[in-house]
């Protein structure tokens, strides 16, 4: 048996060494995403976004005169898978930068591996703590949850003048982090939520949640929901049981999937979106290109990766270097760099964005309402 371990492992190791040793003429950028497992849907969009960026970059002459190539590694939608994927890609000296996952727990799991790899990694997880663990290599291409909650509460309290808040959240890391931040942000505006209600992902029935909302008499619901499927079921039951309160949700509420599943139950709701095709000129151009290439509507899962890839290219081109440390410094030096999600100004922690778009589901169409940003 031991013989086979030896043989097998060395064969595997040698195979990987060779695989990475090939094609050294290209600039190779790592991408750790979800190809298999429960989040494979979102993962495929992320890959789409990054691929579109690479295509455009290569058309414009690539990075430092070389063509760009994505090295995609599956994380199986799990934390251990993410750690393995990072240590695999991180061990290759010809990968100067990477794009990481959009799930906060996966970033958290991979953080030590990122530190060990010592190359800039663009992430999409929105848990605020991810960029506050003294890891100089983590850069966030999305606004973190403190901003999402500030945008939701600011819009609801100040613009819509609604004061009786119910918060519904998934009990996963994203949901409970968002719930805490939103409660804080509302407190900052002098509002105490009348209901805070958690649920586990893939709930089949939201009746108890809806009844609790009814009972609380809330006139506005703020949600941090992870799965589009849960958004769909919740929306249907909410409207069926006659709750008409305004609903401002985290980005999952305006994903293509959620809107398809829930149909008219989601009409009239507000969502925050990192990305909206009408938010700015860059977004418009990107949306057109994405639609023509993939024939689906672009969403945050693709747009953040598109921005992340472009930030890397921009930083490498402006620093004229493919050394990780030079790239890092160049990213930090970007000033008001215009991406499709907004203007990027990376602070010392590595947070690039501080604002969100407010959008409205208007009869099944996502309409841009306004961009709220907390940039100084």
């Amino acid at each position, binding site marked *: *048996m*031991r*013989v*086979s*371990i*030896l043989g*097998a*492992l060395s064969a*595997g*190791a040698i*195979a*990987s*060494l060779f*695989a990475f040793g090939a094609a050294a003429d290209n600039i190779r950028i790592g991408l750790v995403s979800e*190809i*298999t497992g429960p989040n494979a849907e979102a993962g495929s969009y992320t890959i789409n976004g990054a691929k579109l960026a690479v295509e455009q970059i290569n058309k414009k002459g690539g990075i430092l005169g070389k063509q760009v190539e994505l090295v995609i590694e*599956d994380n*199986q939608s*799990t*934390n*251990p898978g993410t*750690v*393995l994927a990072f*240590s*695999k890609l*991180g*061990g290759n000296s010809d990968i100067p930068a990477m794009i990481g996952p959009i799930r*906060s*727990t996966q970033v*958290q*799991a991979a*953080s*030590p*591996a990122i530190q*060990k790899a010592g190359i800039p990694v663009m992430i999409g997880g929105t*848990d605020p703590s991810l960029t506050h663990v003294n890891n100089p290599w983590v850069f966030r291409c999305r606004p973190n949850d403190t901003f999402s909650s500030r945008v939701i509460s600011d819009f609801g309290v100040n613009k819509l003048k609604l004061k009786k808040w119910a918060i519904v959240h998934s*009990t*996963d*890391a994203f949901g*409970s982090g968002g719930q805490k931040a939103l409660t804080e942000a509302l407190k900052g505006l002098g509002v105490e939520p009348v209901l805070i209600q958690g649920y*586990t992902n893939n709930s089949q029935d939201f009746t108890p949640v809806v009844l609790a909302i009814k009972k609380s008499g809330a006139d506005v619901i703020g949600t941090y929901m992870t799965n589009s499927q849960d958004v769909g079921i919740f929306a249907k039951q909410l409207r069926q049981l006659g709750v008409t309160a305004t609903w401002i949700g985290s980005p999952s509420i305006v994903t293509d999937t959620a809107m398809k599943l829930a149909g008219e139950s989601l009409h009239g709701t507000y969502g925050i979106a990192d990305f909206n095709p009408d938010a700015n000129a860059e977004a418009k151009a990107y949306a057109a290109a994405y639609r023509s290439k993939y024939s689906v509507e672009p969403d945050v899962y693709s747009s953040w990766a598109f921005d992340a890839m472009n930030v890397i290219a921009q930083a490498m081109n402006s620093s004229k270097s493919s050394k990780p440390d030079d790239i890092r410094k160049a990213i930090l030096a970007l000033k008001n760099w215009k991406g499709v999600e907004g203007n990027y100004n990376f602070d010392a922690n590595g947070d690039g964005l501080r604002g969100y778009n407010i959008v409205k589901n208007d009869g099944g169409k996502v309409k841009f309402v306004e961009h709220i940003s907390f940039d100084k």
Partner: protein
Amino acid sequence: MQNSQSRRLSPWFFILLALGVAVALLPYMFNVSHFVLSMFMQATTYAIAVLGMVVVLGYTGQINLAQAAFFGFGAYGVALGTVSYGLSFWVALALGIGIAGLAGGILGLTTLRLGGHYLAMITISFQQIFDLVAVNWIEVTHGPDGIAGIPRPSFFGHELSDDRAYLLLCSIVLIALIIAVWYLPRTRLGRAMRGVRENELAAEVVGVHTLRTKVIAFTMSAALGGIGGGLYAGGFAYISPDNFNFQRAVEFLSMVLLGGAQSPFGGALGTTLLILLPEWLKEMPPALQFIKDVYLAIYGLAVILIMVFMPEGIWGLLRNGWMKFARAKPVDTSGIKPLNLDIAVTETTPLLKLEGMQKHFGGLKAVDGVDLEVRRGTVHALIGPNGSGKTTTLNVVNGIYKPTGGRIIVDGIDVSQKSPHERAAHGLGRTFQNIRLFPSMSALENVIVGAQRDNNPIERGSAALRARAMSALEFVGLADKADAIVRSLPYGHQRLVEIARALAGHPKLLLLDEPAAGLNQTEKMELVELLKKLRGGHGLTIFLIDHDMGLVEKVSDRITVLNFGRKIAEGSPQEVLRHPDVIAAYLGDANAAA
């Protein structure tokens, strides 16, 4: 198969051991990437958990779909112990293993008496609840965020922060545990486990405390899961609930099945292969790249194919292949001591006494108030037409059924409420009408399980057990077949092995359930000789059922006749067989019609 052959295999064992140590030292000799080290680390820690599956599934035949939860207990023990409560790694590891073992024991105690399907379901449920609690009880478990910054232990002041050093530690633990698990089937407990797997009822009847054995197996399995998980937490410095979900439990199951559940080497092999499998699939040539998208589907398909075509896993195939080349060494039958069956007959009270014994199944009164005495040192036969309650009587005497009413007294002690293994410990031996042996164990191992009952008046130690078993085999004339796998023996020999298994336990009272059933004439003659040899002044008491009146008449001192669950006659063979009621009972309708 295990005992003598593995003795012969021992040089191989040391070669494998040396190779194992060499692999563990490999990272020191070559420059391996962090990624490969991580894979090694995953493989060693998972393999430890998979060893648990070998014990519980491979040896004991009980399914466990919660191994990932036990793995999780170990990991959370280490993670929470060190990070939240500031304990030393070793203390936290011990706690984690302890909690895992305890959880396994409690789970086992509540469900193991219910058997297969329940166990599958309960372990799945337990796994799901573990997951829910790990995710939702945020104050304690840190919820889905998981726990980061788990420290590595220091070893005699030497901090194992170097991956290679930590991996070496894990490898040493793994190798030590492989040896322990490999040795287990050669122990009393290991044989009991395998007996439970092969035939649980027979194991219980020959004196194995089957519930305890299963609970111990489950506890050991859980503790091994805990060890693996604890080391995993230290190795990766970060854990979160999705390391320990149902999918991981299925992975552990697949690993042990692929490699071969009945051997720790198989378990380790399966673990290694399945950890490497995704990597291999990723390195496929472009034409086969589509496999990447469906490899989990292939994984599922593979599980079915393994079950159909390779039930003993890869290791089983390798071992069977090797066995074909290995010559069977003849059994050394010299120096076998004659079987001591002596029971001191000092009292005149009956050895077995049934007082108004009843056994009802719903409305059916299978045994309805039978009084019966069996004198010491005699052969007492119980006869009667089909459905008269003979086998039920034997099953109640033996403890397989609890009586509905009345008392069963064996050698002055009321055993009515005792379990079969307690009665075996009190000196009851038994054989079954439809032979119940442990089919994939050797004849010798079968008989050793019989010899290892509690209170067997032989010396302590495995040598004495073995000697006792060889004597019993010699007594039935099968000493030269000691190493043969029972399944491959002819029917008549299997019956003799079953008798030898009962005799090895040095019974006061031997219950024989239709010993002549299925035997041909020659074999019946041999059986009669054997029974005569048994009654030859050893003090052994025999209580038997048979349909063959010729045989009953030849060997019995006394006969009791049952009909419709009641005693209708009793006496010497001559008296009883001429008794008009008995003739009527046997001829039944024919008489009435005349």
